[in-house]
């Protein structure tokens, strides 16, 4: 292994959070960004062909070592089963926030047809959703968006990795205007972080 690849491996291993390209470039200041990119690719590939229990995963805009998915039952034994899953209501709310952010609660309520206060509070507590700001309309409603932790928990590189929502079929007798502000062909907004 090249010395630089070894350093990179050590950096990612020692980092508590997904190590971003920017941070790597800061530390390996004499290395070109392009070379870092190649090193990252090579390292990821090495872990793939090795077929071990650890994968080098690109997540939340950085790199992190994560265990192989199919080994989860073993790790769960080790961790004494403590994986609190989100309720369907929380997941739905999270999906709406993830795809439509930044947005206010009224929009979430409208899409889901129910009051989202409870689900939203749970997501805020879990730090999957955060307050982005306030909308400049009467009442100054709070604007919500997803967090970096959301990307980490859901194993996403960035928001663009979310699959596109199923497209709306054209409705007969509809002038189409309303659909334009819908999600037809829409990809999630760039991560506002």
């Amino acid at each position, binding site marked *: 292994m090249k010395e630089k690849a070894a350093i990179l491996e050590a950096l990612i*291993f020692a980092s*508590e*959070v997904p190590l971003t390209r920017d941070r790597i470039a800061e530390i390996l200041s004499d290395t070109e960004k392009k070379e870092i990119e190649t090193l990252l690719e090579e390292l990821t590939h090495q872990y793939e062909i090795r077929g071990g229990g650890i*994968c080098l*995963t690109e997540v939340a805009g950085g790199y*992190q*070592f*994560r*265990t*192989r*998915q199919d080994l*989860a039952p073993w*790790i769960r034994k080790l*961790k004494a089963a*403590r*994986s609190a*899953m*989100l309720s*369907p*209501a929380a*997941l*739905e709310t*999270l*999906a709406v926030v*993830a*795809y439509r952010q930044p947005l206010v609660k009224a929009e979430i309520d409208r*899409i*889901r*047809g*129910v*009051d989202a206060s409870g689900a939203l509070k749970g997501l805020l507590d879990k730090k999957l959703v*955060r*307050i*982005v*700001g*306030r909308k400049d309309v009467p009442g*100054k409603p709070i604007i919500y968006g997803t*967090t*970096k*932790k959301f990307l*980490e*928990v*859901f*194993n*996403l590189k960035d928001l663009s990795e*979310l*699959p596109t*929502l*199923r497209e*709306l*079929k054209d*409705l*007969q*007798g*509809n002038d189409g205007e*309303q*659909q334009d502000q*819908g*999600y037809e062909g829409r990809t999630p907004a760039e991560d506002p*972080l």
Partner: protein
Amino acid sequence: MSYEIKLDIFEGPLDLLLYLIRKNEIDIYNIPIALITEQYLEYLDIMRSLNLDLAGEYLVLAATLIHIKSRLLLPPVEGDEEGEEGEDPRNELVRQLLEYQAFKEAALNLEGRPLLDRDVFTRGARAEELAAQEPEEEVMIEVGVFELVQAFRVIVSNLDHSEDMAIDTEKMSLTDRINEIMERLSEKKELTFTELLGERNDRKRVVYTFLAILELMKLRMIRAYQLGPFGVIRLFLAVEG
């Protein structure tokens, strides 16, 4: 018909409607409103008889369904001023249903991903610990009067009540306080409410400071921001210089 299903599996009225559409193998673009309305209302009856807390949203959708049904029965009015002629009264509901369905799928999709601490794990440290170490992702939120009043109440409740008896020799006017705040802000750019009060936290001073801040906010001379809900309130000059 049997209703041997758990009612709490529904995430809301739209979810119940989608369930009925699937159960009856109905084309979502051509919903037989009469049939669906009837079944929907039956479900509401069951929920009520089970003493389930029937959220108002369920009733709103029931009303919508009945409204659509009535509109379908009426012949289209010629030259309808609302410009709705020609449009199927069901369209709005269908759009809502499709939108909701798309997000329901997206939610399932999210759940199917390799989740941290469920399917994939990182070295040692638990996610919670990581979150605690991460710098808080916070932005400044502009503060309204409500938050200020909250801060005021906290400070007043922390006042030393024995002070109430002291004879106050310091003369204070609102104008003086306003000028003082503006002066200090132009020096320091940023001050918290507590910093503004200084050490002498007697009631009169707190009240005057609070009134001065409110006045300055009203005049848009200063702005108040906080870092997230319940964060420290910081005051800034509205205009630099």
